[in-house]
């Protein structure tokens, strides 16, 4: 039996979760032209540089747009607020928003939150992300 203290991320390529319950999204940065990508890329679309750096994306960003989803796949309980958040890079990331729909506004500042997303085959908590209001 394997036990590890490192929390399990729902998608390790895109989200790193640390032991203290914090974490960050994972993007790529082009060392040649500075372009950022999420999800990570193998090649820069701007200048075709191949050796992109893997970087932690900033945790805060600005809401570009959003919706309240009422019909989804069986994997998601509805309704939920879904939005696109622009973080410094710049790069745009989609995520659910942990706020009442009435409190959501385009242009507001939001912050990454690591949240329980489900359990894996071994019964461990799997962690995902949402965006929430800035404290």
């Amino acid at each position, binding site marked *: 039996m394997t036990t590890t203290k490192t929390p399990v991320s*729902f*998608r390790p390529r*895109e989200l790193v979760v640390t032991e203290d319950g914090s974490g960050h999204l994972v993007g790529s940065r082009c060392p040649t*032209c500075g*372009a*950022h*990508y*999420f*999800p990570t*890329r193998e090649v*820069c*679309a*701007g200048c075709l540089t191949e050796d992109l750096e893997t970087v932690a994306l900033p945790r805060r960003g600005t809401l*570009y*747009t*959003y*919706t*309240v*989803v*009422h*019909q*989804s*796949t*069986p994997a*998601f309980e509805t309704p*939920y607020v*879904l*939005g*696109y958040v*622009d973080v410094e*890079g*710049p*790069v*745009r990331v*989609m*995520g*659910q928003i942990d706020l009442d*729909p009435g409190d959501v506004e*385009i242009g507001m500042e939001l912050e990454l939150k690591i949240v329980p997303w489900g359990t894996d085959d071994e019964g461990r908590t799997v962690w*995902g*992300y949402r965006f929430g209001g800035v404290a």
Partner: protein
Amino acid sequence: MTDVYVIGIGMTQFGKHPDRTAASLGAEAVRAAIHDAGIDPRAIQTGYAGHVFQPMVTGQQVLAQVGLAGIPLANVENACSSGATAIRGSYLDILAGVADVSLAFGTEHLTGAFKGAFTPGEDDPEAAVGATMPAVYAMRARRYMEEFGLTRSQLARISVKNKRNAALNPLAHFKKDITIDDVLAARPIAEPFGLLDCSPVSDGAAAVILASGDWVKRHGDSSRAVRLAASALRTGEVETAPGSMTFEVLTHKTARDAYEAAGVGPEDVDFAEVHDCFTIAEILRIEGLGLFDQGTYPEAVERGEADLGGRFPVNPSGGLLGKGHPLAATGVAQVVELTKQLRGEAEDRQIEGARIGIAHCRGGKAAGVEGAACTVQILMR
């Protein structure tokens, strides 16, 4: 370089066909196109079959049913642009001199393959956090509202227009006029959209037969042949920085390719069939195609300019919202409608004096890419 003509069109009833398969629907549309062209089917030299959620080699199953097995045929998947991409295959075969006559069709038995909200590919990181296609377009609508003052009832007006046109189209999925209040009262899907802002899950197939100008001169009925002056295809570019979600660069660039190939500009076009998978989508397509300035189309629709009989009719067939959206059949059905209009055979939906029509399809979504596949075709009398 030779010219390419549409010489035959065929289409099944769009709607729910619980007892049919994609192959049987495809065969019905292909037979109808052969009869419409009035040709010996053995004249057809190559084929392209668009389908998305169907069994592999559905195209060959169709050929077997219409007696055409033996010719080179490729199955084509490009999400909602699959059918239009199939047409491009036939178009290129004729331009290259590989074929004088080529068949393209799209077929989809969607109700048998699929239920509920559409999502991007299963492994897509956006699907993993709850993206659905309606949600992505709803977010674009919300942003457009913020930037251009689009109102909820202006959005609804697009669905009302397209369903009114569909009520005049015997092959359309929807056959009933609706009101703006009906759209506003429908079950919510992804705000601001309700059910009537979204195209339905439909079954259906459509087929076209293309021929070279020389072949039409020698064997065809040139009075009914309509020229396919452009068939452009592009893939969305990876965004190096977050782009606008209220202007479609992909549509704009694909249209530029098509206008250039056809030697016309947006000001020359008389009417359009565009990919209105959601109400906002019609706005984004029409403005991306350069047919109206950005931010101005919603008010033009309110004034009736995009109605049948208006200054610039959009989606006379009923569009995806009214005619239905059997994914791969959609792009072919658009060319079927353009051909009917340009032949003067559109009956109650006829646009008087229509001379140049444009068709636009756009399909697929991948995180970080503006859109997957986009096609623009221009037909001329």
